[in-house]
Each structure stands twice: as C-alpha cells, then as structure tokens.
C-alpha cells in the first residue's frame, strides 16, 4: 500500500530520515515504532505530503505522489491530537471534511459507534479531549481509504472507544486494506500488528513480520522484543559503532517482508 524508496530528509544538519525504503503491505497492520525523534512522524508526514522528502520516492496504493495531492484520496489520517477551529460545531467539521471528498465512498460507522450524533451541535472548543479524538478517528475512516495512517490512535480514548477503534482496525485489515500505526502502547500494538517497522536515528533498523521479529530477538512477545531492539540500538549508539553492518541486523530487503 505504501511503497517508499530511499526516502531522505534533513532538517538543518539533522538527518531525520536516512535512506528509508519501506513497503507496507495490504491486508495488514504495520506498527511503526522507534524511540522519540527516530523519524516516525517525519515518515508519516512525507507520505501525507505535509513534508517533502529531499530524495527518494513513494507511492500509495500504486499512485505516485502528485503536486495537487490527488493521491491522498486513498489515505485516511488520524493525527495524534486533533485541533479544529474552536467555534466550529462537530457537524461543521464533518461537513467540511466530507465536502472536500464529495465523490469518495462513505463509511459512517464510527460516527454512530462513537455516539457522535449527540455531539453534532456542540462547538469543538467545548469538547473533551476524548470526544475530539473520536471525531478525529471518525474522520480518518470516513472514506474507506485503502491506507489508514493512525498516529497514537488510542491516546485519550476511553477503553470502550478504544475497543471500538481496534475492532474497526481489524475490520479494515480483513477487508484487505492496510493500516500504518504508531503507538507508545506496545501492548496495543501486540494486539493489532502484523508487521513491524523499526526506525532509529532516521534509519530503518528492522522491517518484517512480528513473527520474524520475535524470532530474531528470541522473545515471545512483541513488547520485550521491541525493548530488546531499543536496547541493542542504544548500546550500539553509545559504543559509537558503525551502524548496520556490525549489529548483526541485516538491512531489510523488500523480500524480507
């Protein structure tokens, strides 16, 4: 669904993404993980077209990025924290988003599942963080996109809403669409993730299935496996060893997925 090839991005002297090539496959949930500042957000923003890569290319569902942003028809995005203009009502926000994609197929399931009908006439500024996050999630799923990008999706959601969202994610996966998800809650990723992409210091250190990751790290669960990845990276970093070649972690090749 995403096919990224050699993405690079520098902010001033800082190499935020360094030659990242990653494929996100359809019908799977890919967890994008890594320590803070590893380049996860930048990767997502490049795919969304918010940020431009210095080099490399990517496509979404086979569509190359274009200047007018038409390829974004295929993406649903749920940012980490949504802020809408405070004085807009919930229905105004939804109406705007719908009107921006008049021809797309609709999926209003989350709107009703989250009980947003009762919130429609409230100004966004008066909503609780959780309710705003529900609106945010509903918007991401609104158009049956073939790719969903969810940035810390359950942060701020209550357990019930969180459960509804996870169920929705599974449903999307079952429909053969793909989901790219970042989260700090590793237990949650464990529940959902099929694949893992691990970024550190702007480089992709691992990309593969959860099973492959468990095998490589000798762990039985995702959480300790990722912790192990981070430890190894941390040790490598403090030892100032030349990356990639000496860690025993092969640079992921597409066929590894």
């Amino acid at each position, binding site marked *: 669904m995403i096919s990224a090839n050699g993405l690079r991005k520098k902010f001033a002297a800082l190499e935020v993404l360094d030659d990242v090539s990653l494929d996100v496959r359809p019908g799977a949930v890919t967890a994008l993980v890594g320590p803070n500042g590893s380049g996860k957000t930048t990767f997502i923003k490049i795919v969304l077209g918010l940020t431009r890569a210095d080099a490399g290319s990517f496509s979404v569902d086979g569509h190359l990025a274009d200047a007018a942003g038409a390829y974004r028809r295929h993406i649903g995005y749920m*940012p980490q924290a*949504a802020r809408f*203009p405070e004085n807009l009502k919930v229905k105004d926000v939804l109406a705007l988003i719908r009107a*921006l994609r008049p021809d797309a197929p609709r999926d209003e399931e989350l709107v009703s599942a989250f009980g947003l009908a009762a919130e429609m006439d409230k100004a966004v500024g008066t909503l609780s963080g959780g309710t705003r996050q529900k609106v945010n999630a509903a*918007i991401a799923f609104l158009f049956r996109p073939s790719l969903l990008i969810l940035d810390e999706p359950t942060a701020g959601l209550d357990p019930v809403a969180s459960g509804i969202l996870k169920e929705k994610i599974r449903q999307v996966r079952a429909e053969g669409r793909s989901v790219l998800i970042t989260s700090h809650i590793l237990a949650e990723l464990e529940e959902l993730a099929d694949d893992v992409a691990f970024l550190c210091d702007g480089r992709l250190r691992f990309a593969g299935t959860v099973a492959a990751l468990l095998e490589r790290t000798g762990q039985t669960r995702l959480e300790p496996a990722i912790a192990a990845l981070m430890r190894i990276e941390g040790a490598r970093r403090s030892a100032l060893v030349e990356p990639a070649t000496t860690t025993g972690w092969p640079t992921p090749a597409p066929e590894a997925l």
Partner: protein
Amino acid sequence: MKIVLLVLEAGLRDLTRNRWIVAYGLCFLLLAEGLFWFGGTGPQVALSLLNIVLMIVPLVALVFGTIHMYASREFVELLLAQPVPRPQLFAGLFLGLALPLSGAFAVGAGIPFAWHAGAGTGGGALLALFTAGIALSVAFSAIATWIALSTEDRLKGVGLSLGVWLASTIVYDGLVLAAAAAFADYPLEKPLLGLMLANPVDLARMLVLTQLDVSALMGYTGALFERTFGTGLGTSIAVATLAAWCAVPLALAARRFQRRDF
C-alpha cells in the same frame, strides 16, 4: 475554487463566532457611535476614527492574525492530509482570516455611519476611510500569515508581529520626522511624499486625509499633498500601492505555504 470556498466557509463560521473578533467589531461600533453621540459631525468622527484605525487595525490584524495562524496549525495539517491542493487551501485559510477582520471593522464602523446617514461625510471620504481600514486589515493579515508560516517559535512570531506594528505605526514616521529635520535645507516635500508610499499605514492615512479636506487646509505642503494624492492619478497611485502592500506579503506568504514542511 470549491475547496477555497469550503475552507473559507469554515473559517468564517469559526471567526464570526470568535469573541475577539466580535469584541473588535463592537469596539468600532461603540467608538464611532460614541463619537457621534458626543456631537461629532461625520467628518470629525471619520477623522477621529482614522487615528484609531491607523493604530488598532494593524495591531489586531498582526497579533490576532499571527496567533490565529499558529492555532490553526493542526487543523491545517489535517486538511493538508486530504486530497486538496495547497494553493486553494491557502486561499481559503487566508480569506478566512482577512474577511472576518475586515468585516468586523467595516460593519462595526459602518453601522453608525449608515445609521446617521453619513452625517455630512463626503462619499469620497467614507470610501477612503473604509478602503483604508479594509486594505490595512488585508495587508497586515497577510504579513501576520507570512510571519506565522516563517517562524516556528510562536513567541518569536508574535514578538515579530509587534515589532512590525511598532515599526509601521510609530518608528517609520519617527524616522521620516528625523529626516525632515535633518535635511531641512532641501526641498523635502516630494521625497517625503515618496516615503509615504513605502509604508501602508502612512499611505492609508494620506488616502483618507486628502478626502477629508484636512490637507487642503494645510497651506503649501497640504496643497502639494492634495495635488499628489488628491488627484485622480494620485489617488490611483495610492490605491495601487496599497493594493501592492496587500499583494506582496500575500504572495510571500502563499509561496511560503506552498513550499514549507508542516
């Protein structure tokens, strides 16, 4: 175009319910009506209002505009993630700021004048006053937008806005005054009038003054004003330059919006 209108509509919905904007419009309403109430004739009210417009419109457009653009950041990112071209999104966003600001001024100050049927203010003077207020709203909204898009640090951005405000309302004129004193031995009128073109606040002031008969009263220099800005050609130049003061920062902001990483 449809996208511009959609984004603009959302912006209008938001800001027309914004209490600062409403207070801003009310402030003009009360001021103008108050001036009428205290026995001002139309031209007197227009003249008093001019001073307020020259100070307050740039200040509010800059500071409110900058803060608003920073506050819209996450929303803009969400919209950018939709299949929407950036130029249209920018146009909608900018108009969504500039229209409510201009509108609050125009409606707030306009109602008392309409209510009193102009109260003896010439059509040209009213047109000039409202053109000036709206042009300043647009020009400084554009500058605010540019600042917010170019400066990552919000505090720095707002500081920069305040700096621009001080520079254009006070400091620039201070330098002009210093120049007038320093080069007193030279015929300065024309160069100084030229300098007035380089500052939108001065330009707006000239435009209104020439319509309010004030400059005509001011002897030789006033007569020169009148000849420079009061004629059809002069007014056209003033209006065109004022339009450029809207267009150039707007173009810079648009370019910045087009190119920047969010």
